[in-house]
């Protein structure tokens, strides 16, 4: 992965990645679920190396299927997967009903915010990686 030329931004990105993927308080959203959703979204955005990194960071096999783009086994995870897919691919179509669906699946407000931050961060990170890779290729 190519880093941002500004050290303070590269450091800021590291701190953000830690706060999203290895938070001190994950609000019940475990590391493997976070990496699995990240791998799934990265693949949707076309960042295959990034998706592979997230899959490699998973420590167990519980979420392998969703990491690889498949369906979730339980309704709550399925709701999170559906939200991640929607907000990654068509953010402009997200509406209040989508937040109500997460609530209906049993997510608390901290979980809704933590999930939203994960989705949004992965979309950010994928674009930085894509952009920096382009810069490598020009004079």
């Amino acid at each position, binding site marked *: 992965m190519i880093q*941002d*030329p*500004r050290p*303070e*931004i590269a450091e*800021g*990105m590291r*701190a*953000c990645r*830690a*706060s*999203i993927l290895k*938070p*001190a*308080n994950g*609000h019940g959203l475990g590391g493997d679920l976070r990496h699995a959703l990240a791998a799934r979204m990265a693949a949707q*955005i*076309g*960042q295959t190396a990034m998706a592979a990194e997230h899959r490699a960071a998973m420590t167990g096999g519980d979420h392998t299927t969703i990491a690889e783009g498949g369906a979730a086994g339980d309704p709550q995870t399925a709701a999170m997967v559906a939200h991640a897919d929607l*907000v990654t691919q068509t*953010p*402009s*179509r*997200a*509406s*209040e009903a*989508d*937040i*109500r669906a997460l*609530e209906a699946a049993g997510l608390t*407000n*901290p979980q*809704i*915010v*933590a999930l*939203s*931050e994960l*989705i*949004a*961060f992965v*979309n*950010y990170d*994928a*674009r*930085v990686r*894509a*952009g*920096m890779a*382009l*810069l490598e*290729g*020009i*004079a």
Partner: protein
Amino acid sequence: MSFTVKALTWHPHIEPVRIEDATPEQLAAMQVTPSNTKVSPYVRTLVHDPESYVARTKLYNQIMYGKGGLENVYRELGALVASAVNGCNYCASVHARRHIQLAGGSDIVRALYTTGLDADLDPKTRVIVDFCRVLSQTPSAATPQQAQALRDHGFSKDEIADLIQSAAIFAWANRLMHTLGHSTRQD
């Protein structure tokens, strides 16, 4: 006559943290002090997860306001184009107003607001808009030629990195603001 973009009000879809219920970590994240107890609904919504809020705010400020590098008017254009692609009217209105201030005129914002991203723009602005648009919409479709076009308009590679960050951080911010709430006009 100058074109203006009206300020919007943001309303969260979930109950924000109330100051009186906030934990010490949340109060510190919101920088609440005895003399500063007014915190926006947006910040009180995000502070449900204080760790990510604190980290992102620091990075955001470095990307949008860090000294040196790309001129701020172009960072605001990157933010505006991303917000248009992602359908975040609130973020678009904020950064359209900042762009008008920094550009000293409203020609570009007027064109983007009245005609959209395909508007008739000067060649340099066109190249910036195209690059930020593809990076926001379909990053894998951005080409080295589009990055080279920015070089050809005089931007250094470090400045292009700043533009990438300005557009990319709104892939993040828009996906919070537009999904966790909605905006209305102020009366």
